[in-house]
C-alpha cells in the first residue's frame, strides 16, 4: 500500500497503536469536536492510556524514547483521521521540547514524567499580537527581582492554552539586547498572575484550543528559567528545528487521509453511467495527489531521522523544507479532494471539507511557508559562504 520506509518493529508498533486509536476512538467523534469546538479530553485519555503521549520523550523520563521520528509517525497516523484532535498531543510536544533541549536534570525530572504519561499537557508561548514571524518584536517582559522574575505581557494564539498545565514562555529579560535579551521560562497553570484570555474562533483545528495567556505581575522563581538568561531565542529556534517535522507530520497525515477519502469516493461515485475514477481527469488528479503525498513523506522521514541522528548539526534547513513541502502539499491535496467530491465535498456531511480547513493552519503556524523559505535560503547562502570562504 504505502512505500516501504523500513520502519523498525517498535516504530511499526507506534503506527499500529496510533491507527487503532484514530479509527476506533477518534473517527466516531471527530465531527462532534469540530462542530462543538470542545477540547477532546476523552481522546487525550486514550492517547495517555496507549502510551502515545511520550513517544518522543526519553525512557528515563517515562517516555517511549523514539525521538522526533516517533512523534512524526504517531502524529501522521492520528491526523489521517483528525488533524485537530491530534493537536493536543502534537502541540504538547512543541511546549515540551524547550525542556528537553535546555532543561537541567531537575527540571526534566520535575516536568517530563507527567507529560510522558499524558497526565499533563504542555503549551509553547512565543507569539504575541505584535510579534508573529518576528519573535524579537515581543513585548512581554520578565524583570529580575531577587530570586524571582516578574512577568508582564500577553501571548496570543497559544495552542492548548488554558488546557495545558505546563507552559514554556518566552519573555524579554533585557529589552536593550534584542535577540539576545530573550529568556525562556517554565510556568505552571495556576501560578498567581498567570491568567487566560479569550479563546479564538477558527477556520479549522476547532477541537484544539487557542487562547491568550496573560501575565500580570506574575512572579516565578528563578529555578523556572530554562537554560541561561538571554538564550531564549536560541532555545526557540532549536525547538522549532525539532518541532517543525511535527507540523509537517500533521500536514502529511491530513493529506494522506484526504487522498484515501478521494480515491474511495471516486471509485463509488457514478456519473455518466460509470465511476468517476474511470475518467482520466480524475485519475490524473489522484495520481498527482498520491505522488506528492509520497514525496512529502519521504522528505519528512528523512528530515526527522536527521534530527534524531545527532545534535552536532542544526537541521533548520531540512526541518523547514519538510514543513514547507508537507504543508503546501496538504493544502493542495485537501483542496483537490474537495474538488473530486464536488458538491458533497463542500458539504459537512463528508470529512474532506474539514480536512481542507484543518490543513490551512499548517502553512501558517510555527513559521509561515514564506518564513520557511527564508530559513532554507539563509542556510543555503550560509553553507555556500562556508564552502567558498
Amino acid at each position: 500500500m504505502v512505500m516501504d520506509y523500513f520502519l523498525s518493529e517498535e516504530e511499526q508498533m507506534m503506527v499500529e497503536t496510533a491507527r487503532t486509536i484514530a479509527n476506533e476512538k477518534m473517527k466516531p467523534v471527530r465531527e462532534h469536536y469540530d462542530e462543538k469546538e470542545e477540547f477532546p479530553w476523552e481522546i487525550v485519555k486514550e492517547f495517555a492510556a496507549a502510551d502515545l503521549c511520550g513517544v518522543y520523550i526519553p525512557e528515563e523520563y517515562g517516555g517511549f524514547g523514539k525521538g522526533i521520528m516517533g512523534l512524526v509517525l504517531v502524529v501522521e497516523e492520528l491526523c489521517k483521521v483528525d488533524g485537530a484532535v491530534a493537536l493536543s498531543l502534537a502541540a504538547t510536544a512543541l511546549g515540551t521540547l524547550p525542556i528537553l533541549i535546555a532543561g537541567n536534570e531537575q527540571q526534566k525530572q520535575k516536568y517530563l514524567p507527567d507529560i510522558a504519561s499524558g497526565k499533563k499537557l504542555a503549551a509553547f508561548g512565543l507569539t504575541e499580537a505584535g510579534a508573529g514571524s518576528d519573535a524579537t518584536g515581543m513585548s512581554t517582559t520578565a524583570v529580575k527581582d531577587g530570586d524571582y522574575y516578574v512577568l508582564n505581557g500577553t501571548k496570543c494564539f497559544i495552542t492548548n492554552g488554558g488546557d495545558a498545565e505546563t507552559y514554556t514562555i518566552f519573555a524579554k529579560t533585557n529589552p536593550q539586547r534584542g535577540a539576545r535579551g530573550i529568556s525562556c521560562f517554565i510556568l505552571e497553570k495556576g501560578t498567581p498572575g498567570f491568567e487566560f484570555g479569550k479563546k479564538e474562533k477558527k477556520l479549522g483545528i476547532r477541537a484544539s484550543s487557542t487562547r491568550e495567556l496573560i501575565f500580570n505581575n506574575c512572579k516565578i522563581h528563578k529555578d523556572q528559567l530554562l537554560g541561561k538568561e538571554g538564550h531564549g531565542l536560541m532555545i526557540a529556534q532549536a525547538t522549532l528545528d525539532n518541532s517543525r517535522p511535527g507540523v509537517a507530520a500533521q500536514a502529511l497525515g491530513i493529506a494522506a487521509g484526504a487522498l484515501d477519502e478521494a480515491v474511495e469516493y471516486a471509485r463509488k461515485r457514478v456519473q455518466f453511467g460509470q465511476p468517476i475514477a474511470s475518467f482520466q481527469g480524475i485519475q490524473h488528479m489522484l495520481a498527482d495527489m498520491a505522488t506528492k503525498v509520497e514525496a512529502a513523506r519521504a522528505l519528512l522521514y528523512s528530515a526527522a531521522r536527521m534530527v534524531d541522528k545527532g545534535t552536532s548539526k542544526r537541521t533548520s534547513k531540512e526541518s523547514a523544507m519538510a514543513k514547507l513541502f508537507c504543508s503546501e502539499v496538504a493544502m493542495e491535496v485537501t483542496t483537490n479532494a474537495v474538488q473530486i467530491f464536488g458538491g458533497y465535498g463542500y458539504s459537512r456531511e463528508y470529512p474532506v471539507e474539514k480536512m481542507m480547513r484543518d490543513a490551512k493552519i499548517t502553512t501558517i503556524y510555527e513559521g509561515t511557508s514564506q518564513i520557511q523559505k527564508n530559513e532554507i535560503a539563509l542556510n543555503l547562502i550560509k553553507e555556500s559562504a562556508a564552502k567558498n570562504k
Partner: protein
Amino acid sequence: MNIIVCIKQVPNTTNVQIDAETGRLKREGVESIVNPFDEYAVEEGVRLKEKLGGKVIAVTMGPPQAEAVLREAISKGADEGVLVSDRAFGGADTLATSYALSCAIKHLGDYGVIICGKQATDGDTAQVGPGIAEMLNIAHVAYVKKVESIDEKSIKVERMMEDGYDLIESPLPVLLTVVKEINTPRVASLKGKLAAKKAVIKVLDAAAVGADTKRTGLNGSPTQVMKIFTPPQRQGGQKFTGDAKSVAAELVKKLADAGVV
C-alpha cells in the same frame, strides 16, 4: 489473590468456512483472533487486578500457535500467559476441554476469580466456563454484565437476563463468564505491546498439569459431530389481504386444511 482468564484462539468469523465433507471448520489460511467475548474477560480481569492487586494469568488450550492470543492478552494488561498444549488434548469437546483447563488451573493454584468469555464464536456452546467451575467444584455465575463489588472473600455481580438482571453474591473462588456489556476493552498500549513481545509463555503439557489422558482430547470427548450444516433460510409466510371478515375466513380455512385447527 490471582485472577485467571481463560481465552481461546478462534478463526475470524467474518469469513469462516465449513468443509462440506468433514463438517469441520476450515482453519487453513483463516486469520486467527482472540475470541471476541474473551477480550471482555481479559479487560475485566485487568480491571479487578488494578483494584485488588495480584496477577492476571491468561490461560489458553491449543496448538503452539495459540500463544499469539496469550501475547495479545499480555499487551492488554495480563501479567503472564500459560499455554496448555499437548497432542493428547487434540480433538477435545467441551467436556474434555473443561477437564484439561481445570487441571491446568489446579496446577497454577492460588486464584480468587476465574473469568471466561460467555462463549466462543466458533463453537458457540457456552459450556466450557461452567464446565471448568464444576470440575474445580467452585461456584460460577454466567452472563455477568457488571461486577458490583468484590473483596477478599466474596463478590457481587449482575447477571444479565432476558428481562433484566439478577444481583448475585458468591463466595470466592468463583468463575464468571462475561457478556460484552461488561466493559469496553482497552487498546493495547505501547508498553503493553513491548511486554507482550518479551514475555516468556509457560507451556504446560498433560503430564505437567497431571491430567489423565483418558479424559482429554478425542479420548475424553463423548460428543461426536454428526453433521454441520447451514439451516435453510426461513421463507416469508403467506399474507392475506382484504377486509377483516374474508381474511379471517380464509385464514381459518387454511389452518383447517393444514390440520392445525
